[in-house]
């Protein structure tokens, strides 16, 4: 990105002043090197989002922002229904409620090393992953409706987890005001045999070791210490969410003109929050959030069964489950008053600070856990929401590293087998049905997640708590 187009507000805050049809500024949080590396499309897309009706304060881009669809990936924007605000299917994305879940294990590195290969093979064989994979659960029409309404709570009631899990999931595991009727038959059909599947692409399940603790006080509250083993799951709402994204993108693109909304890019397709299409989308999107929460809950159950067989003394309570493709109704302080806003986070993680009532009570004093997935060969991070993040970007932080290289380029650069062997030599066992998929997801195809996290921390978006590195990675 051309740095001369931006006004530097502070070390890590860059402003694009309103011009043309922009209603508010666009603000990018990044270091100078990250800004220089950032695609110019992020500039265009952050500007386009700033033109949408009812946007409040600014259109934001996180340190890991990259070229997305309409909205940048790493984009945050809040809309006020009382000011003609909109909801945008493109502002949430195709993989609705894609997110990360982190489980404790109570184990240490040596425990894993003793059974590393057996554990990797068992997780790979017992957790459906990759193209065309199906889960063991089949949902009839009533079951589908119950799942879309109940989310992880539905899964726990079916025996896939414990009530304690729900305390550590956003919305207590159940997104309210979901409308299964607003979900198309096609979307339901796509999900019928996909419950409890990991998916493909950048989705994964990893057994990880805490290799660095940056904030010991918060780490202690989170229950993380150097050498601890945790397990992270990254996946979303599977075919159902993808189809809802597809269905409503089209409906909104066609309907926008009838609401008098001029779209600078069709991918920004949106509808007024209080319109028929807007309300139906919100109901369907919330059903997809429940689908994602239920899916990660079922995957958790499958993981626990594997551990029960191989490492029976392990207990796997939930640290936290957080989504990074959502639109949620939240109250935020704006200009001295409190307003109820529809906050879109597209490839951005909610990051409520200390004291926020939606943070689980045992963690409330230090802020909400923010789970940042890295690539399979590098590391992931656990951060904590800050108080100042609300004023910076409606309590939001980054969500991952972002790609540095296209899939095409990655395929020409690496062979999957070579990536697997190199990681094995470093003690990381990778299991995947697709060697081509591995090549496309090679660690070097991603940006440096450490740099992104360091900037999120320095900018005050979230506090860096701990770094984790994989010992086992199952890729879809």
């Amino acid at each position, binding site marked *: 990105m051309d740095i001369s187009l931006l006004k530097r507000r502070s070390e890590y805050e860059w402003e694009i002043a309103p011009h043309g049809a922009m209603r508010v500024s666009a603000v990018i949080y990044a270091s100078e090197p990250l800004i220089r590396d950032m695609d110019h499309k992020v500039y265009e897309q952050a500007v386009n989002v700033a033109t949408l009706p009812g946007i409040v304060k600014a259109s934001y881009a996180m340190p890991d922002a990259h070229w997305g669809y309409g909205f940048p990936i790493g984009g945050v924007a809040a809309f006020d229904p009382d000011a003609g605000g909109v909801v945008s299917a493109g502002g949430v994305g195709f993989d609705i409620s894609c997110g990360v879940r982190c489980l404790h294990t109570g184990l240490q590195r040596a425990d894993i090393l003793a059974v590393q290969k057996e554990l990797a093979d068992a997780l790979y064989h017992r957790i459906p992953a990759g193209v065309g994979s199906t889960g063991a659960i089949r949902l009839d029409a009533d079951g589908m409706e119950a799942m879309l309404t109940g989310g992880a709570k539905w899964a726990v009631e079916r025996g896939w987890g414990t009530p304690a899990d729900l305390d550590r999931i956003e919305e207590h595991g159940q997104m309210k005001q979901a409308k299964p009727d607003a979900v198309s038959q096609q979307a339901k059909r*796509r999900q019928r045999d996909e419950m409890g599947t990991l998916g493909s692409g950048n989705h994964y399940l990893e057994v990880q070791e805490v290799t660095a603790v940056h904030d010991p006080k918060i780490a202690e509250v989170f229950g993380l210490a150097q050498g601890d083993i945790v397990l992270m799951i990254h996946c979303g709402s599977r075919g159902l969410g993808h189809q809802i*994204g597809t269905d409503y993108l089209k409906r909104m693109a066609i309907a926008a003109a009838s609401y008098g909304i001029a779209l600078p890019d069709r991918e920004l397709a949106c509808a007024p929050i209080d319109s028929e299409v807007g309300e139906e989308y919100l109901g369907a999107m919330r059903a997809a959030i429940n689908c994602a929460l239920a899916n990660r809950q079922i995957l958790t159950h499958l993981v626990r069964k594997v551990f029960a067989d191989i490492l029976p003394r392990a207990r796997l309570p939930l640290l936290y489950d957080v989504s990074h493709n959502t639109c949620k109704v939240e109250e935020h302080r704006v200009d001295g008053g409190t307003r109820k806003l529809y906050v879109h986070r597209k490839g951005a993680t909610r990051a409520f600070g200390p004291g926020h009532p939606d943070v689980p009570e045992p963690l409330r004093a230090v802020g909400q856990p923010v789970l940042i997935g890295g690539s399979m060969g590098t590391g992931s991070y656990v951060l904590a929401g800050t108080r100042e993040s609300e004023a910076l970007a409606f309590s939001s932080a980054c969500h991952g590293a972002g790609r540095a290289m296209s899939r*095409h380029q990655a395929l020409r650069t690496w062979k999957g087998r070579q990536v697997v062997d190199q990681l094995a030599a470093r003690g990381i066992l990778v299991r995947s049905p697709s060697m081509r998929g591995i090549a496309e997801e090679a660690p070097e195809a991603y940006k440096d997640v450490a740099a992104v996290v360091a900037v999120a921390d320095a900018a005050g978006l979230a506090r860096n708590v701990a770094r984790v590195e994989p010992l086992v990675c199952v890729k879809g």
Partner: protein
Amino acid sequence: MSGHWEHFPHGADVGVRGFGASKAEAFAQAALAMTAVVADPATVEPREAVAIECEAPDDELLLAEWLNSLVYEMATRKMLFSRFAVRFDGPRLSGEARGERVDLGRHAPAVEIKGATYTALRVARDPDGWVAQTVVDV
């Protein structure tokens, strides 16, 4: 111009672009490009035919609709497609996709497609033929 396809780069995902002497051929080639995001189309036998019907108010939304209809069939039938036929009737498209069930060993599928987006979406008649393109989210 004879039909062919290519991929073009997008930050996180993949652009698919079909070329053809006719709009129908460009649509069919864009579909082939989409299959190639998942697997090598040469490994996919055109054994079984699936009929596709869709419509949209303009050519570009119709391209997205065509590709999304194929994504749906791929996802629910667990199939890959390698031969396509497209016919237009005003805003409607009648098509046929031929392929087979996913075989992990033979197709080595890399990634599933979530949907065809409207990013870099373009259907146009250029001086040397038709082009139909968009970015697919994987």
